[in-house]
C-alpha cells in the first residue's frame, strides 16, 4: 500500500516539487504516513480515510467571498461600464448571477450575464466518452466589452484555455478577466485569476466540490480525498 502510493506520486512529474516541499503535511493527509507519526503530533482534523471530506467554506463564507469579488471587479474596472459576466456551466453560471446580484445591490447597475460552454473546445475530448454539451448564451454583443469569465474552481487552467478559444469565436472583447470562487493551485498552463474568492492549497488527487443552492440545494465548498490517479475538477 505504502509502495503503490509512492509509485503513483512519482509517476506524476507535476506533483514532485510540491510533494518535496510539503512532505510532512502530505504524510499526515495521505494516511500512509501514519506509521511515521511521532508521539505528540496533533491529530489531523482533515480526512484520513478515503470517504472523509472536509468543509472549507460554508454558506456565509461563500456569500462574503462573492460580495468581495463583486466589489473587486467593479473597483478594478472603475464601475460596470461595458462589463459582461460569462459563467462557465454549470456552477460558473450560477456564480456569475450572484456576482451580478451583488453589483446591482451596491451600485444599482444591471450587468449582463451569459453562459459560455467550453466542452467542444476542451483538449481532452478524445480521452473519454462523448461529453454532454452545455448551453452557451450571449446576453449582448461582446465586441469591445470587458468580459469576466466566472468559474467555480481554477485548477489546471485547461478549462480557462478552452474558454478563451470559445470566446474568440463569439467576438473580440476589449479585455478578458477571470474570476473564480476557488483557486486550488496546480496550474498546467500560464493562466492566473484576476479575482479569487479563496485560495485553497490542495493535493492533485483531491477533489474540490463546490455546491451551490441553485443547483445542489446547499451552499458549501469541501475537499474530498478522491482517487490519486485522477485529477479533480
Amino acid at each position, binding site marked *: 500500500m505504502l509502495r503503490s502510493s509512492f509509485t503513483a506520486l512519482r509517476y506524476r512529474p507535476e506533483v514532485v516539487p510540491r510533494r518535496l516541499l510539503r512532505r510532512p503535511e502530505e504524510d499526515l493527509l495521505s494516511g500512509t504516513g501514519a506509521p511515521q507519526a511521532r508521539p505528540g503530533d496533533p491529530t489531523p482534523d482533515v480526512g484520513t480515510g478515503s470517504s472523509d471530506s472536509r468543509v472549507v467554506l460554508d454558506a456565509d463564507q461563500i456569500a462574503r467571498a462573492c460580495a468581495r469579488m463583486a466589489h473587486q471587479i467593479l473597483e478594478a474596472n472603475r464601475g460596470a461600464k461595458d462589463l459582461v459576466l460569462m459563467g462557465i456551466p454549470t456552477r460558473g453560471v450560477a456564480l456569475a448571477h450572484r456576482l451580478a446580484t451583488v453589483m446591482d445591490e451596491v451600485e444599482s447597475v444591471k450587468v449582463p450575464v451569459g453562459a459560455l460552454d467550453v*466542452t467542444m473546445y476542451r483538449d481532452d475530448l*478524445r480521452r*473519454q466518452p462523448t*461529453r454532454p454539451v452545455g448551453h452557451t448564451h450571449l446576453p449582448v454583443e461582446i465586441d469591445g466589452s470587458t468580459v469576466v469569465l466566472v468559474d467555480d474552481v481554477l485548477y489546471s487552467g485547461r478549462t480557462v484555455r478552452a474558454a478563451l478559444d470559445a470566446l474568440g469565436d463569439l467576438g473580440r472583447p476589449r479585455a478578458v478577466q477571470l474570476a473564480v470562487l476557488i483557486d486550488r493551485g496546480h496550474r498546467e498552463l500560464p493562466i492566473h485569476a484576476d479575482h479569487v474568492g479563496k485560495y485553497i492549497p490542495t493535493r492533485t488527487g483531491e477533489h474540490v466540490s463546490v455546491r451551490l443552492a441553485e443547483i445542489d440545494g446547499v451552499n458549501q465548498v469541501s475537499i474530498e480525498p478522491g482517487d490519486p490517479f485522477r485529477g479533480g475538477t
Partner: protein
Amino acid sequence: MRHLLSAADLDRTQITEIFDLAEEMSLVQGRPVKKLPALRGRTVVNLFFEDSTRTRSSFEIAGKWLSADVINISAKGSSVSKGESLRDTVLTVAAMGVDALVIRHHASGAPWQASHWIDAHVLNAGDGTHEHPTQALLDGFTIRRHLRRSAPDLVDFEGKTVAIVGDITHSRVARSNVLLLSTLGAQVTLVAPPTLLPPGVDSWPVLACTDLDEVLPHADIVMMLRVQRERMSGGYFPTPREYTIGYGLTRPRLEAMKSGAAICHPGPMNRGLEISADAADAANSLILDQVAAGVSVRMSVLYELLGGAE
C-alpha cells in the same frame, strides 16, 4: 453509440440528447465564426451512390462546422461506374484512414453491411426503401420545436398524433419516422392508398388508414411524403390527378386540419401532386424549418458518434 444505421438504434434518452445538442448547434449558425473545434483532425467521407442535394450538403456543412475534414464521393465519376463492388469501394475508402463513412445506397441494408467490413463509424444517409434515420431525427427535432412553441416544457410526444401520408411502401423516411416518433411516444397514423401500404404493416406500432379526410381533423402533425416519379406509372394508383384527389394536401383539406396542426414534407416536393402550393407555403408549414434543422441535427449526430474517445 458506434453507428447510426436505423432509427431503432436510438432510445428516448438518446433521441432527447441529440435534440438538445442540436438546439445548441443551431446557435452556431448565428455566430460570426461558424465553427466548433470538436472534430478537428477527424475525416468524414460522404459516400453517395444515389443522387442527393440536401442530405449530402447538410452532412458536408455539419462536418465542416465541427472542423472535420469532409470528402464527397459520388457513384458518378468514381470507380463505381467502372464496376467496382460496394465492398471494394468501402474498403478502399476505409483504407485511407477515415473516421466516419456516411453512406447512401439504393440497396436496403448496404450501410449495415458496410459497418461489418470496416472499423470506421457508419452513418446511414438513406438505404433503398429501408431507412433514413437522420431525416427522421430532423423531422422529430422540427416537430419538437413546433410543439414547444405552445408548450415550452414538452419533452416527448405522448398524446400527439402524427399522420404520415403517401407512398409508405417505398418510403425509407416513413419507416425511420415510424420508429423514431413512436419511440418518443407519438401515435403514428399511416394514410395511403391500399396499394401503397406495405404488407405486414399491422405488426408496426402504428394505425393504418386509407381515408385521409378521416384522419386529418385529429392529427397534430401532417407529414406528406413525396410521390416518387417512377411509381406514377407503376400501377399503384390510376393517375396522378386521382392521387391528388384522394391523398393530396389540397386547399380544402388545409382548412379541415386541426387548429395549431403543422405540415411537414421531407422534400423534394411535387407541388400540385401530393401537396398544393397553398399548403407548402402555409403559415403552419414547417418545410423550411426542416431544411434548416438538417445541419444542426447532423452536427449533433456527428458529435455524438465522433466527439469522444474511440
